């Protein structure tokens, strides 16, 4: 198999990403996002697994009222499906596709999987509390100079830096 191709120059990638974001804002009036699609998955799952619970809980009822077309017919869901396709395309072109687990040199597979699960759970929870993740709140917020978006961005990176030392065994030699 061929060697993976090198990554794109980060500034060029950033510029192109910025243009995609700008096009998104110009066309739709709002930014990119990701965690909103996860919320749709959760709501759709709860609605189909426990319909009674969804009917009796205020949060799901409010969501259903605000999104009469259901959780799937949602801008962010389609966008994230696009992200999946686009990333796969890029991975194929650059010879990077294949089942693989990436971890720090000292971390075991079990630790990495637990870390990913716990980290994912924290990120998912935080993204709902902070009204958006790195894409929806921090990046898109920066583009439109949103105070909340920029504060969330500072909090994300600030906390990650503050905690980096304690989790160094996950990532460093």
């Amino acid at each position, binding site marked *: 198999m061929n060697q993976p191709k090198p990554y794109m120059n980060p500034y060029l990638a950033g510029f192109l990403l910025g243009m995609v974001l700008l096009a998104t804002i110009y066309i739709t009036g709002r930014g990119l996002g990701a965690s909103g699609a996860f919320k749709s998955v959760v709501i759709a799952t709860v609605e189909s697994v426990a319909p009674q619970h969804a009917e009796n809980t205020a949060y799901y009822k409010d969501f259903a009222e605000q999104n009469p077309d259901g959780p799937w017919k949602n801008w962010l869901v389609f966008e994230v499906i696009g992200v999946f396709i*686009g990333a796969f395309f890029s991975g194929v072109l650059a010879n990077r596709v294949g089942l693989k687990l990436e971890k720090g040199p000292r971390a075991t597979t079990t630790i990495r999987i637990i870390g990913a699960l716990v980290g994912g759970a924290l990120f998912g929870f935080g993204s709902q509390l902070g009204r958006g*993740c790195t894409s929806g709140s921090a990046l898109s917020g920066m583009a*439109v100079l949103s105070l909340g978006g920029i504060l969330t961005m500072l909090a994300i990176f600030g906390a990650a830096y503050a905690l980096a030392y304690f989790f160094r065994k996950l990532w460093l030699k």
Partner: protein
Amino acid sequence: MGPLVPYIISEEFSLVIALLLGIAFGFILEQAGFSSTKKLVGLFYGYDFTVLRVFFTAGITAMAGVLLLGHYGLLDLDIIYVNPTFLQSALLGGAIMGAGFIIGGFCPGTSVCAAAIGKLDAMTFIFGSILGVWVFTESFPLLENFYTANNMGNMRISDFLGMSNIQFGFILAAVAVMAFVATWFIESKVNNRTTSVPHPLGTKYLLAGGVLFVVLAVVAFLPGRDDIIKSRIAEAKRQQKCVFREMSADKLANEIVNNYYAINVIDVRTPEEFDKFHIPMAINMPFDRMMDRQWESILRQRMKTNIFYADSDTLVKMACLKANYIGKSDNFILHETAGEFQQMFFMADAPPPGSPKHLNEVYNFRSQAAAGMQSLVNSLKNIGAPVKKEVTKVRGGC
């Protein structure tokens, strides 16, 4: 004028666009290396600042583009979605996400990219995120007060700091450039690399940075769409180049009574003056707010005649000129002022007995017209005669 959804592109079709933009988003993220968790966390240990470079460059590019488009009136900055600010939940939510980032090694967008190329840890991360969101939705009643505390609205950081958007744009761009330079040195030190940028690339970076600051300077120092229209109006007014089509009060009253559906009577005075007295059936479109998007449908249509009026000749002429710059509607100005119209129709005294016949005729016509207009207003009250249009704000978010 952007945004194109929902005015030009329908909500339904925007889903197709979402898919296409998503493909571009995912492709670039993967190309930049965001599908590798080691590259992502490298930011926090100083060995790889790719994330910061991509992220900051993207943010600055989009921001400069938004400001530039707004400056030339191509994008309405007043209605694009500005993420609302809830102080506590933004900070605590961000801090929890930061912990998730360093423990899990991804953020939601990048985990989707990594899962797409087969990374098992990313798939686990997505599963974890979904669990995390579920915990949030289930425990929402407990969190609700905290979640909605300290609502500061859709506030821009520039408003919060009391500066203009472009001033903050300059600051953010400067911070980004300094961060790029500083992280280059940090990365070199951590990785024991020689600290020289290859020469041709260095020149390109300088050029790119130069373009950024030129764009910002254009926004800051060159006149934008509003300024250009303003100066053209002032010029045309000064030189009296423009021929205004005028309509007399009697003719207008007759039009209102008989053809109200074919005309827009537009009051360009302030809302306070409008509330005190306005011509029946008139819409209030204050002069300063005429460029607002909500009026576009009136100033650009060709079905109805627009008739502008105000209290002064200058104001109404400027309004008419402005309307001509915005769209190609059939625009008239009322010869009389609002006050004169009120006098003529609603406060007129009957001519003394023995007056010439035509004075009596005028009086009869005007009082009948006044009654006609009044009854029209009453009968159309419920189908929204003087419409107060609301601007549709874009909904968005994560």
